[in-house]
Structure formats: structure tokens, C-alpha cells
């Protein structure tokens, strides 16, 4: 016998975390996406500082801007959830506390994502 792994476990190649490199990979993909999206967000925010709510409303109600803001906020929040999970994985060791914080991160992530999308839909519908 050369290995204690079952054949199924070996062929899945997921290691002791049971999720393989999924988390690592998602973190990288969202990071790459956030480079151009973050630069667009900076451009947008700087363009809107010093204007009024009419300008902000008309900017965010344009389809491309609404789409880019939706893409930026959802990708940012996904990347946030992945990064916060890293910190919990590294520093929270008590099982109960770990499950609690990981659940909290996921709930905040999903709730905030839904909130951003709903706000953008309301803005689009108001004009």
C-alpha cells in the first residue's frame, strides 16, 4: 500500500481542505477583474465629487455605468468575502467561533451584494 488516500479522493485531487485550489483561484480571478474595475471606479468617483445628486443619478442610470458599478460592487464584495475568510482561516482556531465568523462573513457578503444591486435597480427605475 503506497497511499492512505482512497482512489476517489486521489482522482478528485482536492486535498485535506476538500475544496482544492478553488478559493485561491477565485481570489486571483476577482483580483484581476478588480484592477480595471477599480480604476474605472476611481475615474467615476472623482468625476462625481463636487457635483449634485442630479448628476450622480443621471450618471448611474446610464446602462453602461450601472453595469460597471454592479460589476465593481459585486466583484469587490466577493473578493472581500474571500479575503476575510483567509484571515479567519489563519487566526480563528476555535471551531464554534470559526463557523460563526465564516457564516457572518457570508451573510454580510450576500446581503450587501443584494443591497447594491437593488439600489442600482431603484436608481435606474427612478429616471
Amino acid at each position, binding site marked *: 500500500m503506497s497511499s492512505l488516500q482512497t482512489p476517489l479522493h486521489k482522482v478528485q485531487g482536492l486535498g485535506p481542505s476538500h475544496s482544492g485550489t478553488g478559493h485561491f483561484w477565485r481570489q486571483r480571478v476577482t483580483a484581476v477583474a478588480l484592477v480595471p474595475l477599480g480604476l474605472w471606479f476611481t475615474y467615476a468617483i472623482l*468625476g462625481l465629487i463636487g457635483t449634485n445628486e442630479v448628476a450622480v443619478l443621471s450618471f448611474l442610470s446610464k446602462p453602461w455605468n450601472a453595469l460597471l458599478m454592479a460589476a465593481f460592487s459585486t466583484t469587490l464584495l466577493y473578493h472581500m468575502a474571500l*479575503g476575510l475568510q483567509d*484571515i479567519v482561516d489563519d487566526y480563528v482556531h476555535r471551531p464554534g467561533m470559526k463557523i460563526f465568523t465564516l457564516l457572518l462573513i457570508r451573510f454580510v457578503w450576500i446581503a450587501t451584494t443584494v443591497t447594491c444591486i437593488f439600489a442600482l435597480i431603484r436608481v435606474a427605475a427612478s429616471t
Partner: protein
Amino acid sequence: MADQPQKLGRERPLSPHLTIYRWQVTMLASITHRVTGMALSVGALVLAWWLVSISNGPEGYDGFMAVATTPIGLVVLFGFAWSLSFHLLNGIRHLAWDLGYGFNKATATQTGSLVYILSLVAAIAIFAFVWTGHSGYLQ
């Protein structure tokens, strides 16, 4: 003798940590990446608050702006601007490492210092841009 394995299990030796190592740019950049990431998590919540305030009409937006333009609000916004600059630039540094570039000890230290300098310049440039009246071009 019987309880010794359990005791060993509880007091296993730890690897050297922050209190042991000499401080270096690379480790400071790594810690700063995490801290700015946590700050930007709060920033993401503020972004959601901003979007909700706009969707609530003029009164809602004025309420957000009243908080954002207080002295404390501006300091926090500067913190977000620097955190975003640092996390974005250092994130690119991390992505370069993922591709196998920049692992040389001297190179890693140089790029670390560069990220600190460039992120500070970017954050100050953003605020200077606004204070000199160049913002608001999306009117």
C-alpha cells in the same frame, strides 16, 4: 506518564512569529495588505450605503454627503483612497509573484518600498485633484 501525550498536544512548539523576526519591508507590506483589505471591507459597506442613499432620492444623498464631508469623514475617505491604492498596487505585485516574477530578495524589497511610495503619491494626488477643483467632470 499517562497524561503526557495530551500535555504535549496542548503545548506544541510554535514557529517564530512577529515578535521574533526583525521587521522588514516585505513582511510589513504583507501585513499592510491584510490591514488595507480589512479597511476596504468597511469601504465596501460604505459603497453600499452610498448607493442606497442615492436610490433614496435627494434627502438620502444629502444625508450621506453631510456625514462624508465632516473632518472625520474626510480622514476616513483619505484612508480608503490610500488603502485602495496600496491594495491595488500590492495586489499587482502579488499577481506578478503568482506568475513567478519578482521573487528575488532584493527585487521583492524594492517593489515593496515602491508600492508604499506610489500608493501614498496616488492617495495624495487624488485629494489634490479634488482640492484644486479638477473633480466633478461628470456633471
